[in-house]
């Protein structure tokens, strides 16, 4: 058997209190080699009841949502509403480097599991609390979901359509949770480097609404700098004034993003060459304008609308891209354009990415073994580390799967472990 490559976070031990908001942070750490132990109530975490399910059969062991967000983790069950469960959790935390959680503010303090309480059992512990509005402050007790975080925090205002009778749009896929988790991991690793250097642990308060607020690009800084309010537009950046469309329907009905329209001489030359290669010069006699653009040394974009020739060249570039798109399927438009040095993007659905030749060549789809189903294909590495590769160590844990091995290491005997496990796994649905 080949020894797996060393892992960047080998030896790092993380206790994660299961919550759908924070699960992604644990995955980011676990897939880089940390030993992440996700702690669920005996009846199972709410995340196990999140669709979609394998063959749509509602079952706590068949949630694909749980599977995705809990790869590489170990799973134990403890009832923290019971003092024996809390005792065991304290013992577990005493062995850990990180404790990460996303309970509503105040819940853990009421159970004597606040960061200060845990610091007593592990003085150099790094605790991460991620909540919708931070663990204290004027809005900390408000209810929230991914939708309301992205709608109140700025992203939704920026997204939608030219037609403002249509509502602003929340981007899909729980990105509000993801952004919070990215900041949880960035700040947690920063605290880890501090601890490596000084031996000192600390508490990190992550505010998801604030994370959304600082993830809107010009949405925030245009207001901060010049008091401008960006306005949403179809398939392109929100802007304080209308900008040209950059999303186009191709011959197969699918869409592509045309990126920035041709601006440089070499780009006009490239588009001219493309028009001719497709035999479109009769249908597009303005190809001569593209060639004029291609022969110029420099095109001053500030002269659009002022200089007749520059305006005509620029317009021809846009028109040519639209014409070519109408002649090609979206993937061909993307691939041919990129081969000619023109940055374009096919608009894939998530499943289509998985069979793209480039993603396949780089090994993005990865196979994870599930005993009962065989091999399942998952989305792979967000980064390629040369020496310490990202790797899904194992499928997500079954309910209580690692109780024996993890809890026995804490010095608990078989009876105590069985006692703590409480309700038999999966016998009743978790309350949502």
């Amino acid at each position: 058997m080949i020894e797996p490559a060393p892992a960047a976070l080998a030896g790092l031990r993380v206790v994660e209190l299961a919550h759908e908001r924070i699960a992604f942070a644990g995955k980011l750490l676990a897939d880089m080699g940390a030993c992440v132990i996700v702690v669920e109530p005996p009846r199972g975490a709410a995340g196990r009841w999140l669709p979609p399910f394998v063959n749509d059969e509602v079952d706590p062991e068949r949630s694909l949502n749980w599977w995705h967000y809990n790869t590489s983790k170990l799973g134990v069950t403890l009832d923290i509403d019971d003092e024996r469960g809390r005792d065991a959790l304290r013992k577990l935390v005493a062995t850990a480097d990180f404790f990460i959680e996303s309970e509503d503010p105040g819940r853990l303090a009421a159970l004597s599991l606040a960061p200060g309480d845990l610091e007593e059992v592990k003085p150099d512990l790094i605790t991460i609390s991620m909540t919708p509005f931070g663990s204290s402050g004027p809005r900390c007790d408000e209810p929230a979901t991914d939708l309301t975080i992205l709608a109140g925090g700025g992203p939704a205002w920026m997204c939608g359509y030219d037609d403002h009778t249509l509502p602003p749009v929340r981007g899909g896929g729980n990105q509000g949770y993801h952004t919070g988790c990215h900041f949880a991991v960035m700040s947690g690793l920063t605290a880890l480097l501090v601890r490596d250097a000084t031996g000192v642990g600390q508490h990190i308060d992550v505010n998801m609404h604030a994370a959304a607020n600082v993830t809107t690009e010009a949405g925030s800084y245009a207001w901060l700098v010049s008091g401008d309010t960006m306005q949403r537009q179809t398939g392109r950046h929100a802007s304080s004034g209308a900008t040209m469309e950059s999303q186009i329907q191709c011959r197969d009905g699918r869409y592509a993003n045309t990126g920035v329209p041709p601006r440089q001489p070499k780009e006009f030359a490239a588009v001219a060459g493309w028009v001719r290669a497709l035999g479109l010069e009769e249908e597009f006699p303005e190809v001569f304008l593209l060639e004029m653009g291609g022969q110029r040394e420099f095109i001053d974009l500030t002269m659009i609308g002022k200089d007749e020739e520059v305006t005509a060249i620029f317009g021809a570039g846009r028109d040519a891209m639209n014409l070519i798109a109408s002649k090609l399927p979206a993937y061909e438009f993307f691939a041919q354009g990129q081969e000619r040095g023109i940055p374009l993007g096919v608009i894939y659905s998530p499943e289509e990415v998985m069979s793209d030749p480039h993603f396949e060549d780089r090994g993005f789809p990865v196979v994870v073994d599930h005993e009962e189903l065989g091999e399942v294909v998952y989305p792979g590495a967000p980064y390629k580390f040369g020496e310490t590769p990202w790797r899904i160590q194992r499928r997500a844990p079954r309910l209580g799967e690692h109780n024996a091995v993890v809890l026995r290491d804490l010095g608990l005997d078989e009876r105590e472990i069985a006692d703590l496990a409480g309700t038999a796994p999966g016998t009743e649905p978790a309350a949502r």
Partner: protein
Amino acid sequence: MSSKALSHVRICDFTGQLAGAGATRTLAAFGAEVIRVEDPVRQGRWDILRGTGPFKDDRRGIEYSGSFNNTNVEKKGITLNLRTERGRELLSELVKVSDVVSENFAAGVMERLGFGYEALKAIKPDIIYVSNCGFGHTGPYRKWKTWGPIVQAVSGLTFTSGLPDEPPAGWGYSYMDHTGGYYMTIAILMALVHKSRTGEGQWVDMSCTEAGASLNGPAVLDFTVNGRKLRRPGSPNSNRNEWPAMAPHGIYPSRGDDRWIAIACRSDDEWAKLAGLIDRDWSRAPHLAELAGRRDHEDELDALVASFTRLHEEFDLAERIRKLGIPATAVQRPGERIDGDPNTSAWGLWPTVEHSAMGEVRVDGLPVHLSKTDWSIERGAPCLGEHNDEVLGGLLGVSASELEALRDEGVI
């Protein structure tokens, strides 16, 4: 603790735009010494943010960009002309005393400059080198180029943002420039952790489209396990929620022009409370009492909810709904969430920096607070070559007279 979290880390930084410069921004806010290396010949304009708006006042030019400033707070800036031998020598000297080299050029540019990973490793054996480009350094698309919206398109994120029977809405900003930057920050930090334990450096090859594609997990598994595609009639509708199912769940019109409220009803109990607040015959209709019924009639339900919400001012209505324990919020405009939201102001989310040319400017802060080594953002982005004397003179020991000569010769 007096020193900042990462004050022991030095980064030789070639990044630009948000996708790269956003990554080292976070590290700089935590105290890393981030030294931006820019080209004096092109006046740093490889980074298109240098010189582009928004502008604070009437002044224009490479030192007045609000976007560049926001993305490069707390960094130092030097200029090196890498076409010259002395410029390359000085870069080597800088690499020798750095922990990390970061860049987001197109694949192959660092190699052409003579500072690919093998060359960097020859200069500093334990160097951490993190590159971030659209498609990574291997594979058939490695030479293809991207901007944020193209990354979002190819990674599946544009598709998943939209309403049925409409084209994709996509993201009205470069979500993947932000998020690619976050992954780059995480990559640098993880590589630093590994180095602090083993002494070993490495190259992290980031493909921003892969980072984006990793954010669609459940949708991908629904296809690879169940064969169900997200591209199907009526899908996606990203203002609704399938996983878990909630209804009503969406963004509804409120009183006024382009005013909206978001509501997420998580349970039948929450719906019963909201139905009581709405207080119409339809809201008490038995076929809407349970989730399954509301999902079966979701178009009808959304139209009815909208008929109610459009009569009300969104901030007031959202507060009344939240008092029932139901998530709701106004769709906040920039001014409302920046200057009118107690959560962001109490957090200290919008610090003011001092920029050498622009003066005082407000910028994005960080959405985290660390109890012992918190971030701080006080200094604006560096002007072109602003720290040449400090870094080349102070850190690398170049004499004042040579610095003068290097300026004259166009090396810096």
